[in-house]
């Protein structure tokens, strides 16, 4: 019985649509859970500046506030370890997701970002067996997710040597930054057949390329509604083909249920994996229809889903 337990969400950043969708999903799902009496509280907290130090302070405050579990999307996989350890020592269950932490006492709901990067190249190798030049758009320098996905992409290129990354820019997971960076490097690039991305940057790249007279390469998308919509337009008009992959913001709700299960006394393995949410040519329309205008393709999880994930990990 967890009806007296209090869970907190520690979130490091709220400045993009993905995070906003994540917070919305959290609010929706946990709101119902609180109303149903499953847990006593599920309060979300967000820091102002996407900084590990600030988030560490936030976690320490949660310890003081007496939460029973902290669900955590971390600014850094390692820099919060000190605070997380303190929380564990205080008897608090810590479940990290998306931005996971390496501290052994915490649970991790991880996305295999490396695999995500690799799968992008794999998809391209199926679509363009003859290979060609790729442009890579990276995320924010110095952040772990950026490094992971990029490593995956380069692994993929090693696996499919017909591809070659001829340019790499940092798009900071933002359409406008990506657009600017791509527009800057594009004039000096040879023909490119594909753009491998990290999410939140595909539409920007498309915009930058559309502004030139180049042929539109295959741009891997990142599940944002504007990306999907653009893809739909291109698909309807010119039969454009690509795929879209990202982690669903609703994973916060999965983390919530996992935390609830742990509080309930369930035996849960420390490392759980969630699949990323992939959209392909054939299920584009359904996904687009389910995505809020301006939002991100999303999946929200139920308690049953969580139990299934926990069971399958055993």
């Amino acid at each position, binding site marked *: 019985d967890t009806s007296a337990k209090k869970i907190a969400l520690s979130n490091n950043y*709220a*400045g*993009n*649509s993905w*995070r*906003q*969708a994540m*917070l*919305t999903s959290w609010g929706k799902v946990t709101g119902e859970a609180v109303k149903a009496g499953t847990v006593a509280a599920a309060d979300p907290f967000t820091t*102002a500046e996407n900084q590990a130090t600030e988030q560490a302070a936030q976690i320490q405050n949660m310890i003081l506030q007496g939460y029973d579990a902290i669900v955590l999307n971390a600014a850094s996989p390692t820099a919060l370890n000190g605070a997380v350890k303190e929380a564990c020592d205080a008897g608090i269950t810590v479940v990290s997701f998306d931005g996971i932490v390496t501290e052994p006492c915490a649970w991790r709901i991880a996305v295999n970002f490396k695999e995500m990067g690799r799968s992008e190249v794999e998809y391209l190798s199926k679509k363009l067996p003859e290979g060609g030049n790729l442009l890579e758009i990276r995320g924010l*320098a*110095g952040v772990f997710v950026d490094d992971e996905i990029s490593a995956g992409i380069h692994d993929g290129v090693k696996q499919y040597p017909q591809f070659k990354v001829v*340019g*790499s*820019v*940092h798009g*900071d997971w*933002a*359409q*406008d*930054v990506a*657009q*600017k*960076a791509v*527009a*800057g*490097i*594009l*004039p*000096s690039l040879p023909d490119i057949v594909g753009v491998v991305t990290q999410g939140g940057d595909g*539409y*920007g790249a498309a*915009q*930058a390329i*559309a*502004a*030139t007279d180049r042929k539109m390469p295959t741009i891997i998308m990142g599940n*944002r*509604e*504007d990306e999907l*919509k653009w893809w739909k337009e291109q698909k309807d008009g010119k039969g454009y083909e690509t795929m879209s992959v990202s982690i669903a913001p609703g994973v916060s709700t999965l983390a919530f249920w996992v935390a609830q299960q742990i509080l309930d006394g369930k035996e849960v393995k420390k490392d759980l994996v969630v699949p990323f949410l992939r959209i392909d040519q054939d299920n584009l329309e359904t996904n687009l229809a389910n995505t*809020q*205008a*301006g*939002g991100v393709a999303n999946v929200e999880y139920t308690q049953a889903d969580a139990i299934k994930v926990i069971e399958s990990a055993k």
Partner: protein
Amino acid sequence: MTPVLRLFSKPWIWSWLAALTVWFLTIMVTLGASTLGLSQAALTFAAFSVIVGLGQMFVITLGPGNIDLSVPATMTLAGTVALKLMNVENGMILPGLLIAIVLGLAVGLGNYALIKALRIPPIIATLSMSFIVQSAAIWTNRGLRIKPPGMLAEFTTSNTLGVPNVAIVALLISLFAWFLLEKTIYGRWISAIGQSMPAARMAGIPVDGTRFVTYLFCAVLASLAGYLLACFSGGAALNMGSEYLLMSIAVVVIGGTAVAGGDSNVPGIWGASLFMFLVVSMLNTYGVGAGIRLIMTGLIIISVIMLAGGRRAGMR
């Protein structure tokens, strides 16, 4: 003084030289094939830096300590609210623009109220303000990316006679700013205030009024840039302004405007904005990693300021 020497005594020449050098180095990679594409891209993206940079320049001209850190948040708020209001309808383009400007005015008013009424140093006042504005942006539409009206999207992304439309807009605003600075009494006033606030007061200049208008102007330019950028990049994002915090300051100081105030120049903003875009493009083109790119950017900024020479009585 020969014309060449006179040219070299202009404070803005260094940013232009730096931009040209970097531009040349970049197009040489493709032996000139990328000239047109690179130039167009540079003009396009420099335009946004120019618009926010101009506003920041007016504020910095007001003298030591004057700076507006609320630029990014203002851009975000103006972009998100305007796009939400326009809701992809071409008929709403003007109301959207209007609301962006009104928001800019409101932020500027808030900034100066904090500075004047609560005597908070501008650097902290505008920072605090930016948090509030950022929250307002989150609250209004929770980060949804709404598309701009078709006409506007078309306008911001296309060229006229090979020149990007946004660059033309920025040029017009620059001309207006230049005109304000050089030809109007207001320009004289801000320059005087920047050189010495007590002297300006004793010369009968309405110091508070002028400073207030300047903070308004900066915020309005930021909101205008936010509006254009949101339309250009196909939707407003909550983080779309963050890049422009350091950028708006960097283009001003690299452009040769005196950090100690009182002396501003418009051409330098263009040189510096082009340079800031081109240097990233160049380093990307040469495949330099993020670390080296940052280091080189920093070293170049320091070299430009060393070349341009320290200023007398250059406070800070």
